[in-house]
Every structure is written in structure tokens, then in C-alpha cells.
């Protein structure tokens, strides 16, 4: 099991030692043009999570390729480039300009910008034609049938899935009863998201068997193991990095201990373990029938 950061949850230039503690660094989403992001306030703490409405602040494709990417390569950590845009061509143009990175993650699900008009499958198909690099489609669990979207992007040529992105939410200022965030809504992350992530990873593994980067509410090694059991090949740390920059090493230690407690040699031995009961259930139901 390899450990990444969730896109937008770590700046490798500001904290290179944290990035080097991961098995791969995922960039903030790169869009064709530079974006300053949304007006502040951009974050709010909630009961068991947080909201963010950063709005894909990034230097834009040109500056990223010329300035940021060469410096990121110096980190010595495998790079995943998160790619965003507002139509399929935006995504495909950025994909075509990338090489020498481990994978591309297509951000098809940011809740803080207006959605791309093209469907997830159209975007994946355009990118597939533009690059031979591994393509991971980052999907939202806000879709009523995320497994159907997973099947569609798999058919369009995705090599893997990243699950899940934040879910749109709102927090009010207790004194004014107005939204805390300047944008009004933001993406909900943190421990409150974990059951949603488990369900989405479980459903999309069952639907596609594609490799999955599981994320959403991972605070501990045990949380990471739960995602592995649902079908995640890789696990990404998001909000926990804000509270604990030492989380990569801690989660890895806890993961090893959690696997040991379950009597397996390594966490990967529990890969898709949450699905193993389904056959039994099927057989039983046949017997009953």
C-alpha cells in the first residue's frame, strides 16, 4: 500500500520534508490559466470536519510546466499531477504537455468551481487520446451512482480512480447566521467523510476492479486499512496533514501495527477484504432461493 497526499492538501515547496515522507506527491490542481482562488474566508471548521473553498488557486499550466515542475522533480518523490479545466480540451491540452511523471489525476469533481460542462467520460476520453501516462479519474461521491461514473470513465480509458473528493457543505457564523465562507459553500473534508469514502471505494472497486487511490477522512492507520479493505491500492492523506504534518510516518506505523493485530504480514494482504463476504452471501441466498 502506497501513501500519497490528497491534491491541495500539501505544498511540497513549503514543506519538502513532509512530501518526502510520502510515496508520491500529488500537486494542487493545475488549470490552463493562473487562478488566484476564491476570496477569503476560505476555510471553516465544522463539528467533525472542515470546509474549504480555496477555488483551485494555482500558477496556471505555462508557469507550472516552466517553473514548478522542474523544481518538483528535484524532490526525488514520484509526482502525480492533478489536472483541472472547464472543458475536455482544457484537460487534454495539459495532459499532452506532461511527461516524466508517475501519473495524472483528472480532477473531475471540485465542489468549489463551476463544473466542467463535458461529462467525466468525455474528459477522460480526450485525455486518453492526448497522453500515454496513467490516468486516474478523481470522482465525487455526490453523484447518486458513483459506480456508474466509474464504469463510464473506465470504458473511456481511465487507468485508475481517485475516491473521493470533498462534498459540498456550508457553515454559518453563529453570531450573524450568515455563511462563514465568502463563497457561501465549500468542500467538506475530515473524519466526517470516512463512511462516504468507504462506500464509494467499495462500490467502485466492485464495479471496475481498477486500482483506486482511497481518501476521505483518514486520520489513522486503521482508517487507511479500512480503505484498503474496501478496494484501495493507494491511500491519500488530506485534512489530517493540516492538523499533523508528521501524519505520513505515524499513519504508516499505525497501519503496520493494525495489520499485525489482524494477523497479516502487510496491509495489502487485506486488499478488498471487505468484498470477500459477498460471495458467501450470494451462495447463501441461492441456497435459500
Amino acid at each position, binding site marked *: 500500500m502506497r501513501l500519497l497526499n490528497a491534491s491541495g492538501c500539501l505544498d511540497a515547496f513549503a514543506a519538502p520534508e513532509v512530501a518526502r515522507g510520502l510515496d508520491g506527491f500529488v500537486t494542487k490542481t493545475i488549470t490552463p490559466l493562473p487562478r488566484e482562488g476564491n476570496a*477569503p474566508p476560505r476555510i471553516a471548521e465544522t463539528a467533525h470536519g472542515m470546509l474549504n473553498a480555496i477555488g483551485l488557486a494555482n500558477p496556471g499550466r505555462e508557469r507550472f510546466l516552466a517553473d514548478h515542475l522542474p523544481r518538483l522533480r528535484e524532490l526525488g518523490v514520484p509526482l502525480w499531477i492533478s489536472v483541472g479545466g472547464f472543458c475536455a480540451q482544457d484537460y487534454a491540452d495539459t495532459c499532452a504537455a506532461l511527461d516524466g511523471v508517475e501519473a495524472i489525476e483528472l480532477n473531475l469533481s471540485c465542489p468549489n468551481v463551476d463544473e466542467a460542462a463535458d461529462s467525466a467520460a468525455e474528459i477522460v476520453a480526450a485525455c486518453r487520446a492526448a497522453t500515454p501516462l496513467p490516468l486516474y479519474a478523481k470522482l465525487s461521491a455526490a453523484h447518486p451512482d458513483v459506480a456508474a461514473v466509474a464504469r463510464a470513465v473506465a470504458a473511456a480509458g481511465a487507468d485508475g480512480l481517485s475516491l473521493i473528493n470533498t462534498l459540498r457543505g456550508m457553515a454559518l457564523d453563529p453570531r450573524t447566521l450568515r455563511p462563514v465562507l465568502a463563497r457561501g459553500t465549500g468542500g467538506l473534508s475530515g473524519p466526517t467523510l470516512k463512511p462516504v469514502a468507504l462506500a464509494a471505494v467499495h462500490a467502485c472497486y466492485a464495479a471496475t476492479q481498477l486500482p483506486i487511490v482511497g481518501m476521505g477522512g483518514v486520520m489513522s492507520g486503521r482508517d487507511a486499512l479500512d480503505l484498503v479493505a474496501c478496494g484501495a491500492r493507494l491511500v491519500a492523506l488530506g485534512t489530517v496533514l493540516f492538523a499533523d504534518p508528521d501524519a505520513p510516518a505515524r499513519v504508516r506505523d499505525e497501519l503496520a501495527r493494525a495489520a499485525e493485530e489482524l494477523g497479516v504480514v502487510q496491509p495489502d494482504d487485506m486488499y478488498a477484504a471487505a468484498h470477500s463476504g459477498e460471495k458467501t452471501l450470494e451462495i447463501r441466498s441461492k441456497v435459500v432461493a
Partner: protein
Amino acid sequence: MPRRERRSVVAAEPVGPYTFLRLDRGGLDPGTPGQFFMLEAPGRLLPRALSLCLAPAGELGFLIDPVGPGTEALCALEPGEAIHVFGPLGNGFRLDVERPLLVGGGIGIAPLPYLAEALRFPPAVLGFRSDAHAEAAVLLPGAEVAVEPTLVTELITPGHGVLACGPEPMLRAVGALCPGAQLAWEAPMACGYGACYGCAVEIGGVLKRLCVEGPVLSAGAERTRRDTAAVVERFDGEMSRLARGPVRERVL
């Protein structure tokens, strides 16, 4: 270098409506004045950003205004309890200042006692919204104190290198009056080390990430005199508004 350690509470002492939280320093570097630490807030997901107020031998001291669930939890800590502390973070004040004058507003007094020590106790002016809040001036002996309706900007005399911390309207007013002043800003902050992009504030028309580019920034010298008058007037109006209710906890 910033480090993250679990540190014990030595004491939590009331200072007017604020709490002075003293932590065992352990292996943490106190850093330069104006730098800050992320303190784990018991029961909350995110830590809270607090600038260092004083660095007694073997300790780190933080002045906390209990304005929300996180700061309330920090103020309620008992001696012997332990929390994770990460820091020092951000860029502090430059200390190569001629004729320094410290300017503080409300809980913005927090980094000034440590700064005063480093600058060998220069003159200071402090503004508070009530006599109760002004009790915190005890942390900066000799400071001149203004209590509303008098504003701290009325106590600033020309010819000083100003180092200021306080509410945003006060900082904008001080920056307009004293181009080149060093201003310590505040913004909601989830991580403190550049990861979350939450603490962006618009300064000089550009969004800046306070935790890595600040929290101390130089005031822009580009404002016109007419701008200055408008900004100072706005400070006056906004302070009246702030005085009507408690300021929201900044990481909420």
C-alpha cells in the same frame, strides 16, 4: 526549524478576559517575535494559530482570547495536561528598526511582550475596547493605553519605525498612517505551514498566504493621502461595529 512536540501545561492564568497559557518548552525553539505556533485544541479537528507572547526560561507563553470552541478549550487546560505544539512558523518582525514603536490592539497585544524584550523595551501604545480588556496591558509595562472611544492610532507620533499587531481595520489604518510599518496579520488558518491555502488575505490587491509569506508583512507605501483618510475613517467605523459583539474565533 519548526518541530511538533507534545508539551505539558505549566499554568493557565487569567489576564483580564484573556488567558495566559504557559507550556513546558521541551525541544521547541521559541523563534523570533511575531512567529507563531499551532496549538492542538482539545476536542477539535484543527489546531489554533497563536503567536508567542513570552518565552520564560524553559517555557512558551501564549495569550489567548476565548472567542470560540477551540480557544475556549485551550483556556480551559489544566496544569499537567498535554497538547501537541508545532512551530515556530511564519516570518516574524524584522528587528533592525530605528526608533521602534510597538502598536497593539486588543488580543493583538499577544506578540508584543516578546518583541519588546528583543528590542529592549521600546515605547508602546495599546488600544482596547474596554477597561477589562485593557488589563492585558500589564504584560507590557510602561505602555500608553487607549480605551475606546479613543483609538490607538491617535497615540502614534511621527518619526517611529512602527511594529503593529491588532484587528484588520486597525492594521489597515496603521499601515496607511505609517508606510513601511511592519504589520502582523491574522486569518483563519488550518495548518500553519502552507498546506491548506486557507489563510489567504488580500493585501495590496494581491492574495497572500499569511502562514508562509507573513504573518508579518510590510505596509505598502503606495497609498495616497486621500486613501489614508478613508482608511482611518473606516477603521473608526469598523471598530464601533466590532465593539458591539465578540469577535468571531478566527479558525471557525
